[in-house]
């Protein structure tokens, strides 16, 4: 694997939160690589640390341990001023378009704000850019001077997407971008995201608790559980051959939209205890990595274990 093919690299990343009840390890020892142009999906239940992982990679949080590289440069310890150029290249699409867009600004102002902060273009150029972005996400030009309350949930999320993409970032973190939307609208927004991603050659970290949605959007999928990364594989491989018991439970819990295949004898749900230390991920073939705590390495007939056990 050539390193210049990597856009984002996180190594042994940890983010802890402290409250009265003690230290909560939201993200604990997570290592992953994101290649240029790929979409890496992150799934896990609420509280598994997937949102914290996204925010830490974006450096909205300062990690306790570990390193983050973006486009070949380490950004782990940069201060706010030094991070500013990276803010232009890493953008986020937030979960709830009802809360993440200001009700006081017009759509035009919302879209131009990032350009203004990054000191890009003249007033006229910024306006042209905002309008062309609106058209790109399928909203009418006259949305420019309207305010957020005049839009439905799906349209608001389109505005959220337009705001994230107006700086032409290299890397976008989409944190549950459709979970607040109705199913029929969800499909439109997912299709739009997919189109824009291809058009703008975006690299994407797609966070969702919905495995079907993650499968639809991603090339590879990472499974988070209690702050640990427990399994990572190309999506077809993961859905065909899940190894970690938690991944198996997750997959067997997806409702299958076909009543003919209703199965009353599904696998029981297994929620393993959190191991004390972050698991070592082991390569088991086909770019499939799984937590070493959970497998019997002999099962996979790995001859030279030293060579195969690798961080990712």
């Amino acid at each position, binding site marked *: 694997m050539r390193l210049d093919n990597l856009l984002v690299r996180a190594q042994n990343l940890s983010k802890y939160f402290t409250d009265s009840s003690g230290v909560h390890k939201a993200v604990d020892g997570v290592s992953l690589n994101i290649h240029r142009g790929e979409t890496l999906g992150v799934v896990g239940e*609420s509280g598994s640390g997937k949102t914290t992982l996204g925010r830490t990679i974006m450096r909205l949080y300062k990690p306790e341990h570990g390193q983050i590289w973006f486009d070949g440069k380490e950004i782990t310890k940069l201060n706010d001023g030094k991070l500013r150029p990276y803010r232009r290249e890493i953008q986020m699409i937030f979960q709830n378009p009802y809360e993440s867009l200001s009700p006081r600004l017009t759509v035009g102002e919302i879209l131009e704000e990032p350009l203004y902060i990054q000191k890009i273009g003249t007033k006229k150029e910024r306006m042209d850019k905002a309008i062309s972005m609106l058209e790109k996400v399928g909203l009418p030009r006259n949305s420019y001077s309207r305010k957020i309350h005049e839009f439905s949930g799906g349209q608001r999320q389109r505005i959220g997407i337009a705001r994230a993409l107006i700086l032409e970032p290299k890397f976008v973190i989409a944190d549950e971008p459709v979970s607040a939307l109705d199913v029929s609208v*969800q*499909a439109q927004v997912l299709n739009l995201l997919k189109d824009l991603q291809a058009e703008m050659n975006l690299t994407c970290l797609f966070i969702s608790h919905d495995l079907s*949605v993650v499968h*639809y959007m991603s090339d590879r999928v990472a499974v988070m559980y209690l702050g640990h990364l427990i399994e990572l594989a190309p999506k077809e491989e993961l859905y065909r051959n899940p190894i970690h018991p938690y991944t198996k439970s997750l997959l067997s819990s*997806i*409702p299958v939209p*076909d009543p*003919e295949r209703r199965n009353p004898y599904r696998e029981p*749900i297994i929620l393993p205890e959190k191991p004390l230390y972050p698991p070592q991920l082991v390569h088991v073939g086909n770019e499939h990595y799984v937590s070493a705590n959970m497998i019997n390495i002999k099962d996979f007939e790995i001859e030279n274990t030293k060579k195969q056990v690798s961080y990712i």
Partner: protein
Amino acid sequence: MDQHILQIKNLRVSFNKNKQKTTAVNDVSLQIERGQTVALIGESGSGKSITSLSVLQLLPSNGQVEKGSITFDGNELLKKPEKEMREIRGNEISMIFQDAIASLNPGMKVGLQITEGLKYHKLVSKEELKSEALQLLEQVGFKNPAQIYNQYPDQLSGGMKQRILIAMAISCKPKLLIADEPTTALDVTIQRQVLDLIEHYKTDLDASVLLITHDFGVVAEYADWVYVMLGGHIVESADVYTIFKNPVHPYTKALIGSIPNPENGQERLKSIQDYTFEDTGYDGRKFAPATYTYESSSFDAPSSLIEVEPMHYVRFYDDERKVVAIG
């Protein structure tokens, strides 16, 4: 004994707001056979929750039932006075609400909350209440009921709270359980546990379930019969196998086509824009509504459900000429 536990006929519910009348539910007929799980599916604002609230007569004060009848176990509910309705709510029909956090009392131990219904309806002693509560907690899957009994809602996770709500809803062994989006805020693994729990209760006590949802995946796993709701109307209804095999109404097709399904490797999700409502008719009739956008669906002309094949109903306009006039 009547074959149907619940029968709604031609229900119309409207709301008064600023001296303007809006019809939220119109011409809704729905029936649930004993032992069946019936799904009512549609997106937010389609009228599914209003329909279920009408059954319990828990509509907000500015809403009223204008027309129609609701019979439960052979008795007309709409004519019952409030006092008799109280005997039915929680006792014979009970409801699991969507928002578990908002439906529990934060200042009361969950063990006591679970048995409030029992205390009201069944007049049992304090000791019996406690043992009943512990039993219910065990029934909904808690391994340490004695400990949970003494906890407050904010000490529990979302899935646990939802299970407390289920324990509360089944405490009086109701004949009909209305579950209003019971799993929307939950993770898939917990969603499965919660729905399985409802399913077990239904089978064990031969009860019936009205499952309100917007997720066709959940419908495929748990429902026997499906009603699709749009703009306050039922636009299609059939048994669950038929509706997946042969959906007729473009809105139903869109809902089914928009579910991402890892198993069929779809390149692109269908969305509502991929279906035309206007041109595709059926047997010379026009689908109702003839147009659809997310914000509005127009039902300006009279429409009714037509049986397109045995036991499969789809809504069409009554008079084709009127549709042309709407354009």
